[in-house]
């Protein structure tokens, strides 16, 4: 597989997913880029915008095995990772894998579970393995977590730990659709579309795990020049020194920017990363990694504002301006 083939395959993913998820092309692309870059995605949006539908559709389009965990306050870590259960017949403990053992894990409303349970995902997300009772088990490849959370509802929710936030490659906002898209949506439902039945939207499988693994290997051939690396490090460094930021992006954030940049370049049929890739991805890759000072939060400054200001101040490599 080469970059051009990857690009055409990527386009087919977007087209196919857009059959069920209307008017969210940018979100779909952002999520797919994160998936291609072997990263996890946190989708944030108010209820009813199709976050879960997006995750389910992606699993169908990508042809991956998927499982869903509905996070609740009483969810236990073993409910996520699995655990050893005594097998009376065999007189020994047998490991029962949790839902985390899958290709695509949909962690729905992840902030409804306490930090203890959320932390059960840390090792799975970072090392793609689960350790229980001294034994480490590898997760299947590819392994992707798509988590959703609702930013408005705060009662009975637990903010995600910084360590876990940092493990998400991208945080994507899902916004309200436009009026035209909403009309199209209603027409689809009027003509028989059922969100629980993706066949009704004609969503078909476009790939499989082997193909995705091959595509990931292609990413390693995408070139990243020194100027681009300098550009990325400048952006990340400024996120640490910005006056409104209490805690800036980690080196993992910089690495995420690099890998996501490669994925975006390949998705557009390029064998090299350009500044536009970095600039376009910086908000989704960095926004959840920044912790703002309380006074900045009170003044209404958001992480997106900070990133936008940083991008405006940072000189693009080889600019003619």
């Amino acid at each position, binding site marked *: 597989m080469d970059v051009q083939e990857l690009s055409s395959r990527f386009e087919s993913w977007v087209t196919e997913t857009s059959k069920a998820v209307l008017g969210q092309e940018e979100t779909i692309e952002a999520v797919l880029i994160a998936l291609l870059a072997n990263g996890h995605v946190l989708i944030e949006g108010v209820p009813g915008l199709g976050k879960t539908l997006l995750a389910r559709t992606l699993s169908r389009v990508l042809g991956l095995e998927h499982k869903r965990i509905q996070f609740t306050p009483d969810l236990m870590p073993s409910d996520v990772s699995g655990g050893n259960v005594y097998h009376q017949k065999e007189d020994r403990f047998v490991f029962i894998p949790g839902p985390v053992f899958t290709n695509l894990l949909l962690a729905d409303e992840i902030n409804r579970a306490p930090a203890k349970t959320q932390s059960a995902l840390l090792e799975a997300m970072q090392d793609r393995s689960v350790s229980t009772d001294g034994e480490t088990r590898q997760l299947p490849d590819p392994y992707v977590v798509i988590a959703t959370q609702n930013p408005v509802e705060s009662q009975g929710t637990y*903010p995600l*730990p910084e360590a876990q936030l940092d493990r998400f490659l991208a945080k994507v906002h899902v916004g309200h659709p436009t009026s035209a898209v909403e009309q199209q949506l209603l027409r689809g439902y009027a003509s028989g579309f059922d969100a629980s039945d993706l066949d009704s939207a004609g969503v078909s499988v476009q790939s499989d795990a082997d193909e995705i693994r091959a595509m990931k290997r292609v990413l390693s051939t995408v070139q990243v020049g020194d100027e681009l690396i300098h550009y990325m490090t400048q952006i990340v460094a400024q996120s640490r020194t910005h006056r409104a930021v209490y805690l800036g992006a980690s080196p993992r954030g910089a690495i995420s920017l690099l890998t996501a940049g490669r994925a975006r370049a390949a998705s557009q049929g390029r064998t090299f990363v*350009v500044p*536009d890739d970095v600039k376009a991805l910086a908000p989704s890759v960095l926004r959840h990694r920044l912790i703002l000072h*309380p006074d900045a939060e009170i*003044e209404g400054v958001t992480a997106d504002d900070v990133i936008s200001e940083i991008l*405006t*101040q940072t000189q693009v*490599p080889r600019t003619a301006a």
Partner: protein
Amino acid sequence: MSAWLLSLYLLGTSGQGVLADEDYRFCHEPRYPLYEDERRWCELGGDPNPRCPDLPKACENHVEPGPDGRFSGAWGDGDGSGDGSGDGSDAGDGEQESRATPPDGDGRKARPKRKEIELPAVLSPIAKLLLIGLVLAGIALIARHILKNRHDDPEDDPDEPVRAPSPEEAQVAAIRAAKETDVTRLLNLARAEASAGRFEAAIEYAYAAALRRLDGDGFIELHHSRTNGDYVRRLRRGQPQLASELRGVVREVEGVQFGARAATRERFDAVLSGVMNIVGRGATALLLLLSLFGLPGCSDDAGDAESKPKPVIGGDTSPIGERAVLEAIATKSPKVSYRIEPLNIIAEDVGTLIILPGAGPKDDNWDPILAWVEEGGRLILAGERPTHKDLELFEDPRPTPYTQLFTGYFVGFNDMQGWTLKVPPSPGLLPQIGLTEGESVLYRYLSDDYSDEEVSVYAVGVYRGEGEIIAFENDDFFTNIAMSVEDNARAMATMAHRYDERSVQLCTAWTGSGSSSPLDAMRNADLTPLIVQLLVFVVLLVLYRGIAFGRLRDTEARGRRASVDHVQALGSHYARAQATGHAWQAYAAWALDQIDLRLPGQRRRGLQATASAIAARTQWPETEVITLLLAASDAANRGGPASMRGPASAAHADADEGSSSLHNLQRMAAMLAAMGPSHQGTKPKK
């Protein structure tokens, strides 16, 4: 169309048409005030006067001008609308303003006199000295900077050995050159680099030229933080075709810049071709835009010229104005206008020139005009008295009491036989222009016996080459009020008319005030020395700064608010959010840091030891100190990132602890004040 034909018919019969417009207020307002000079026409129009119906009443109405020679108060028809020019701005001073008065309203508003600022005589030398001193100081300052700049620049030091630039220096030079903003120079640089085999630099220059062109045309705005994708997306919103072309160029350029693709001649040619398309398209769009702007300006000429007469632009509607003259001429010669251009070059399409007093060439250079006459032009001197030997007019001192004009046989006047033409009495001219014997084209008799020898010539004409020169005794005939009399308007139209449809131009004192080029305008306005000085200054500044001039591209730095504003805004936000607890958390963390600074190392020994030290230092009760420290420590621990707090805890905490937090905050501030300043940073005394 029909109105114009009607006016033409009326003009043909009585001349009523041109004065039917309400703008000629002296014809339509019975109480219109007239100067004595204008009253000379009262008897000539007759009573009733169908061409100017209310002029007879205005003539009966003796409104006296004020002591300053101006009319004051309302003199209209009682609705207060007619006082416009009567109050305080008349052509006053007891005599009529010259014809040079610019048209304004009905023309009776005179130009305000220029107020001269008179400085005491003693100040004049001081002012001169100050001015000279300032200029010298400025020149010295600039010269000093230039010398300093050159002295500081090692490249200009002749003693410095010339060495080849290092690769890094060459790269810096390339970056500097990349900031070149002129599109043509960038393209030239690109071609030069390409011819030298440096295709990567050539591609960058070519691409920079495209961006600069798009920036200059206003399609994009260059900024150091914008990517090529940003520019393409910006173009896609308004110029999708251009966006597509730029995208093609960008793909090639980025392949070289970031993709390690080889910069070859073929790739450069491809980029340059795309860039030239963009650059050319931008210019085309600009031309198209200019053409569109130009269309409305041409629409008067391009309109239905046959269906309506060309409107006469401007003109003074007062009794001594000339708008009615122009309108009368326009009834037979549609191409009639004021002449703005100077008289040194007269176009071939000009058929008749009417020169009012003071409108002749200022330098008495009448040769171009005479040459034009010889080629078939008709020159009418309406009271203008040239000093040129071929145009000198000889006055006849004999006055005549009569107003009736008789027409002689001359081109343009042959058709007027039997018409009734009248002007107020005045001396006459000898039938001679220069040394040439002329024809008496308009004349009056000096006595009742109508003897041919006893005539006073009002206008005389001579043939010169293929053209004619007609000189009038004065400009009385070329006034609005003259058009109200008998067949004067018909005569005016006939006299100026040329059958070859060439234009008629009326020259006033404004003639020649326009300029054919910016350089002429500069010279006419006596601005040449100033502009030259400014240019010299700019050149010196360029030499000094060594940068191109242009619009500042950097974004304006956002002004930092005053600290007190920031604190007040923050405080109001805290108060509005009922976040006293939050404020206490932040303050507690800061206060504990302050305690660390003032009692270095104490907190490591524990809370009890710290409290004891503070109590000893402040003389506060130790129990109160330890309570306060515990509260501060607890608050500081709760003041971390959101994830360190329990679910939705802050709001509840604030509601419960609001009053105690404020109390703690005040007590902590008092305790810090009692502890005194920090000694950190001062040298310990040995």
